[in-house]
């Protein structure tokens, strides 16, 4: 039996070492400040405990309006064609420009037959008057303007969507617990607070990148520069076309420009999924699938345009130009000079939904702990006092076995913090609530075992039998309480967000640690104690 014990003790020490590594990593030194340094690097504290980055973003809501009117242009053209009403063009006379100016809410229909004015009028009224004001001009033209209330509602919705998308992107694992909320009155601004600012640039990139994936028909290109490109369309760009730069493959030094049709064939929310993959030549690429409705549109377009070129535009730049060889329905690949990282980030951005509009950074600062650094200190002191009181009490009430309980409690906390260090989860005040519950249940487990052992001793059993029976009975109860709570924590983690998730994470780690220490470690310590008992001596409990 003694040999068995040594290997079990070795296992416990190994676990202890592993989780101490989880907490500290490999510290640069053993001084107090070096250790503190390595802890803060491994264990991330939340905004409420330590503060972090304070970013204010502006949502360019006009882009959402522009998108909506773009798709309305397409629909109006379709409707007029179906009703056999001729027109010379449907376009936006003052589209949104990169500097933010323009009137994206305006659409014009021109060149219609004046005889058909009434027909066109009633068609437009029937289909569009809910959201647009339709005004007829004298020369067979119509001006269609998005209603101000509708525009406002769309802008609000865009901000909300942006908030949700940002939350998804920043918090994909659900463990970094950012603060994301609307900011300001009606300025379409969002406040994002992130705990810690170590890789702020990467986070800013993830947040801000619109990652709008669109597929546009190519009118002409590639051209060497903008003049040549404009020359090909007679010097001035028609309203339904735009210039786009090609973000070339590495190694190609010439910038090239394409003239594309402004309205994309498929874009943004038409993409149902996007995942990293490998192309035929072994490089990382993105595989996407389209929604059913978009797939139909894409099929229609590609089958009507075999032999023509289409451009895959990402974030406003042409990523790839392909010739349409045959009709494509709903899945495809985007190849390019992507690195594995880029492909992963890109897929995630496409999956969590394209941002409905671009974001501009207005402000970029750091804030202190929202709970207040003073409260954090007070809270930590109070908690430490509480835990010490428990430890002292266990020694007094359970004597020798109290050491057992105290060691188990200490090991529990080490394992829990080690888990946090390994997983990179953020510790917030709700997370600490989970730790408190874990400590409570840990103490409970020990008390259950000890009380049971005392009962067995009172019933006259010999020490080792008493310990055996005590553990056997208490084990059932400990399993039931822990599994129930772990089930609850798992569900909270799956369905909850923010603080609920943080709570669930520490709780699960803590309970797992508890099961290990309360039963395995405690048992080993008891066995060691029993081994040392002289015959006739009783367990110190």
């Amino acid at each position, binding site marked *: 039996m003694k040999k068995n014990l040594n290997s079990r003790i070795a296992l416990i020490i190994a676990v202890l070492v592993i989780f101490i590594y989880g907490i500290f990593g490999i510290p640069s030194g053993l001084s107090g400040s070096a250790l503190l340094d390595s802890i803060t690097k491994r264990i991330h504290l939340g905004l409420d405990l330590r503060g972090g980055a304070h970013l204010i973003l502006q949502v360019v809501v006009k882009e959402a309006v522009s998108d909506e009117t773009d798709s309305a242009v397409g629909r109006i053209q379709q409707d007029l064609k179906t009703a056999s009403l001729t027109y010379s063009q449907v376009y936006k006379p003052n589209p949104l420009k990169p500097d933010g100016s323009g009137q994206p809410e305006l659409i014009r229909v021109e060149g219609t037959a004046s005889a058909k004015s009434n027909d066109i009028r009633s068609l437009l009224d029937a289909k569009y008057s809910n959201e647009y004001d339709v005004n007829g001009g004298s020369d067979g033209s119509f001006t269609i303007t998005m209603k101000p209330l509708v525009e406002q509602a769309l802008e609000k919705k865009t901000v909300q969507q942006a908030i949700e998308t940002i939350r998804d992107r920043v918090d994909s694992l659900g463990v970094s617990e950012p603060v994301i909320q609307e900011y300001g009155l009606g300025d379409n601004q969002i406040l994002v607070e992130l705990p810690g600012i170590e890789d702020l640039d990467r986070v800013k990139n993830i947040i801000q990148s619109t990652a709008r994936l669109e597929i546009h028909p190519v009118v002409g290109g590639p051209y060497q520069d903008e003049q040549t490109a404009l020359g090909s369309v007679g010097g001035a760009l028609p309203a339904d076309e735009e210039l786009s730069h090609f973000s070339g493959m590495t190694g190609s030094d010439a910038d090239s420009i394409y003239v594309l049709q402004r309205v994309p064939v498929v874009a943004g929310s038409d993409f149902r999924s996007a995942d990293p993959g490998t192309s035929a030549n072994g490089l990382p690429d993105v595989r996407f699938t389209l929604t059913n409705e978009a797939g139909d549109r894409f099929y229609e377009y590609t089958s009507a345009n075999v032999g023509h070129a289409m451009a895959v535009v990402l974030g406003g730049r042409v990523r790839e130009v392909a010739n349409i060889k045959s009709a494509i329905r709903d899945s495809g690949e985007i190849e390019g000079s992507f690195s594995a990282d880029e492909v992963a980030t890109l897929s995630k951005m496409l999956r969590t939904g394209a941002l409905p509009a671009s974001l501009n950074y207005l402000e970029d600062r750091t804030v202190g702990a929202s709970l207040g650094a003073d409260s954090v200190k007070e809270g930590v002191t109070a908690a430490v006092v509480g835990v010490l009181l428990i430890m002292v009490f266990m020694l007094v*009430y359970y004597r020798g076995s109290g050491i057992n309980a105290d060691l188990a409690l200490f090991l529990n906390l080490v394992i829990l913090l080690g888990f946090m260090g390994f997983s990179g989860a953020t510790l917030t005040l709700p997370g600490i609530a989970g730790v408190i519950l874990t400590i*409570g249940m840990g103490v409970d487990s020990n008390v259950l075992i000890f009380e049971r052992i005392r009962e067995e001793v009172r019933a006259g059993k010999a020490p080792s039998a008493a310990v055996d029976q005590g553990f056997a009975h208490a084990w059932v109860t400990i399993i039931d309480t822990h599994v129930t709570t772990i089930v609850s924590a798992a569900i909270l983690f799956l369905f909850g967000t923010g603080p609920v998730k943080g709570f669930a994470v520490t709780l699960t780690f803590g309970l797992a640690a508890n099961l290990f220490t309360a039963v395995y470690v405690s048992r080993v310590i008891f066995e060691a104690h029993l081994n040392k008992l002289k015959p006739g001596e009783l367990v110190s409990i």
Partner: protein
Amino acid sequence: MLRSQEGRESVELFRSVNVDWLGKKWYFLLFSMVFSVAGIISMGLHWQKIGSPVPLGVDFRGGTQIQVQFNSAPDINRIRQAMDAAGIKDASIQPIRNLDQATSNDVLISLPEQTNEAALDAGREQIMDALRSHYDSSIDTKNIRNVQVVGPTVGKQLEKQAGLATLYSMLGMLIYLWFRFQLIYGVAAVVACFHDTLITVGAFALTNQEISLTVIAAILTLVGYSMNDTIVVFDRIRENLRLSRRETLSDVVNRSINQTLSRTVLTSGLTFITVLSLYVFGGQVLKGFSFALVVGILIGTYSSIAVAAPMLVAWQDWRAGKGKAAVLPAAKRAKA
């Protein structure tokens, strides 16, 4: 006569307790009803006055955020005291600086206020007055760098999700208990949890304290704790039912509670002391959080004995009254 351990006195409370817990169930019921009803009435009054059953903090309502640049390095503690002295409860106070600055004297103060234009000015005035009277009389408009309205951190979406998550988790626990014990055990445990949550939230309503995100976390904690406590008692009941077929259910339940009493008082007592220490020493910002835990632990312990256990017996009696066979003593051969 029990042989004492070599003459050593072991410290032991509750060596042989024999209280008739179930006999007191009407007192328990009365106690629970009084506090539940008081809580519900208080919540109803709050709802009428402010549109929510309990005062809600900045996290739920949003508010005004004011950036103040102090003339010298700000003392957060004193600022908080200044706010308190002016009657501004629950202001969040955070130092803020630009990334390229080494230090700054700027502080962000967030107030739970109504979010409209007028409130911005009102908020600014309030803060300036508070700071002027209790912190630094030379504060004036030039120190106010920015006043903004902030939306709630917990939007409707998050609220709904948090609520659903909690309900699902209770359902999950009920199912597990159904599987390990019997359905009535699961139901009784979940009812006890609801009872605890109701009384704790009612306590917030009665004492007019705000509920913030961290309080939600505290409530989740007390649900877990109450479950834990209830299951320990249930486990003992199940074990005793297996061992003895001749006792009535009431007797078995009473005996089980008495046997676990030592453990219950110890664990609850120790956890309670920790949480009490947090409430007393943990500072003003954590008061809501620790208050929920203090009330929650007391009620959680109480409910296992006073709500969950009597429910088992009541269910048994009801079934017996309808002529159905006694379900509980012939319990499933649950695995050990």
